[in-house]
């Protein structure tokens, strides 16, 4: 379980996160939703220790992340950022291979290599594996980065808008894969997502952030209602149930 307590974060004079306290359950898929600029990425970066915590405490399975060694964190948590700037000329296979760095620290074993090949296959990247990252499309790059986090094989996986740039086929297959990881391997996944239908269909837990505060958090069926979502986005959202599945209509 990740627990965030009284987390406040400002950049310059602007308050980005305002006294956030929330718990993220283990072994489940948690959707982190909210309007643009709400502070979702900022929160995710703080949890992933990309930036230092200013005030408040974030703990991972009861341990303060600020006091955990970074090599240790890399074995427990993998992250895919929203912006994937890679300037240098790396190939897809090299990129995915770096995902095993926390385990092998520069000396890849057969196990590491096999894991990389398997991930390339599972994320449909085999054909692209020898291409340079700056010579493939945005969606393909996105998949390569997700594959890299996947081979890290950590208990926690944080993804910041991973569906960006993905076409329907890959978006579906990514969500199915995440579902599978949570159910079969008991992985805990946090995903920043704008597509409410994917979120409703796959997430067990919702955390909504608005203007740096937690708007609501809880089990999907409890909190994802037409009223709460409409208020969150300041736009009309209707949740309609059919065949036991929920759908969000907003136009």
């Amino acid at each position, binding site marked *: 379980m990740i627990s965030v307590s009284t987390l406040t974060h400002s950049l310059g004079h602007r308050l980005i996160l305002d006294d956030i306290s929330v718990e993220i359950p283990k072994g489940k898929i948690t959707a982190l939703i909210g309007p643009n600029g709400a502070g979702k990425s900022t929160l995710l970066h703080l949890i992933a220790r990309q930036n230092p915590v200013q005030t408040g405490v974030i703990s991972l399975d009861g341990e303060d992340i600020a006091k955990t060694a970074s090599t240790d964190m890399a074995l427990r948590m993998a992250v895919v950022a929203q912006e994937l*700037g890679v300037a240098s000329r790396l190939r897809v296979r090299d990129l995915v291979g770096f995902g095993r760095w926390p385990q092998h620290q520069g000396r890849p074993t057969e196990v590491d290599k096999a894991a990389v090949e398997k991930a390339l296959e599972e994320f449909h990247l085999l054909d692209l594996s020898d291409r340079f990252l700056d010579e493939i499309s945005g969606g393909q790059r996105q998949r390569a980065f997700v594959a890299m986090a996947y081979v890290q094989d950590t208990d926690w996986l944080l993804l910041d808008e991973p569906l960006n740039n993905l076409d329907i086929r890959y978006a579906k297959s990514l969500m199915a894969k995440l579902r599978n990881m949570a159910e079969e391997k008991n992985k805990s996944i946090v995903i920043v997502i704008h597509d409410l239908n994917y979120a409703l269909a796959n997430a067990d837990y919702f955390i909504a952030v608005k203007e740096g505060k937690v708007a609501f958090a809880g089990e999907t069926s409890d909190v994802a209602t037409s009223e709460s979502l409409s208020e969150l986005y300041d736009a009309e959202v209707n949740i309609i149930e059919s065949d036991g599945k929920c759908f969000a209509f907003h136009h």
Partner: protein
Amino acid sequence: MSDKRLWALFISLVLVVAVLFFWNLTTHIAFILELRAIKIGGLLVVGAAIGVSTVLFQTISNNRILTPSIMGFDSLYLLMQTCLIFFLSGLTYAHMPGNLLFLLNTLTMLIASVVLFTFVLKATRHDIQLMILVGVIFGLVFRSFSTFIQRLIDPSEFAVLQSVMFAQFGGINEKELLSALMLLVLVCCWVARKCQVLDVMLLGRRTAKSLGVDYDRLQFMVLCAISILVSVSTALVGPIIFLGLLVSALAHSLMKTHRHALLLPAAAMISALILLLGQALFENLLERQSTLTVVIEFVGGLFFLVLLSKGKIK
């Protein structure tokens, strides 16, 4: 495959060195061999320092067009040296043992550049254009500040300085060469052990950190290594602005890999080859020693413009 190319480079380097060393020996053999050893040794050390420092800098600044010299490292070295001469006054400076002098210069350079460039890299991390601008401005400021201080120095002290201000391959000092060689070997041993984690740094700060790499500390250490290497090459032959850029581009297009274990030795050897061949060509065939730097700067500078205009500043 890549390893074969490294071997090819290595063999050509050995051949070139052997030819330059033993070529046209008639009289005063011992004397001439000693002179040649110093000169060739100097060029090898300078070449390796420039090649390695450029590739390292491009890794920590996450781009393929900036080099330490373009960012003003060389000018900073000259400024530090000018300041030292000014404050210690020329006489003591001229009478200090060569080694001590060189190490003192390197140490001031190390401190100044790490302080400055840690800040610059932090502030301009995401913006290469801004970084180029800062580098150009730094170079200008350092140079004009050096000139200003040089005005304040009296003529006899200035003579000490003049010999180190312009790139020249002729007068490499034997004592300096030894200390430079030692520093180079030390730095290269450290770098060799960091090759793999340097590869991870290519992913950028954020991703590298999420893989458990202590990016900021490593960047600091690499900056230290770069300043030492720049001190080494600038102390021996003076500033050569655009060689590093040529070398890294050649190394990249020859090795076609991101791996530092292959890129770094390739860059070091290519750089030494260019210097040795260029020097031999100009000294023996054209009999014009001083023009080599001019040609390197001209070709390298043109290449820099081509890269800029092709929009390859990513």
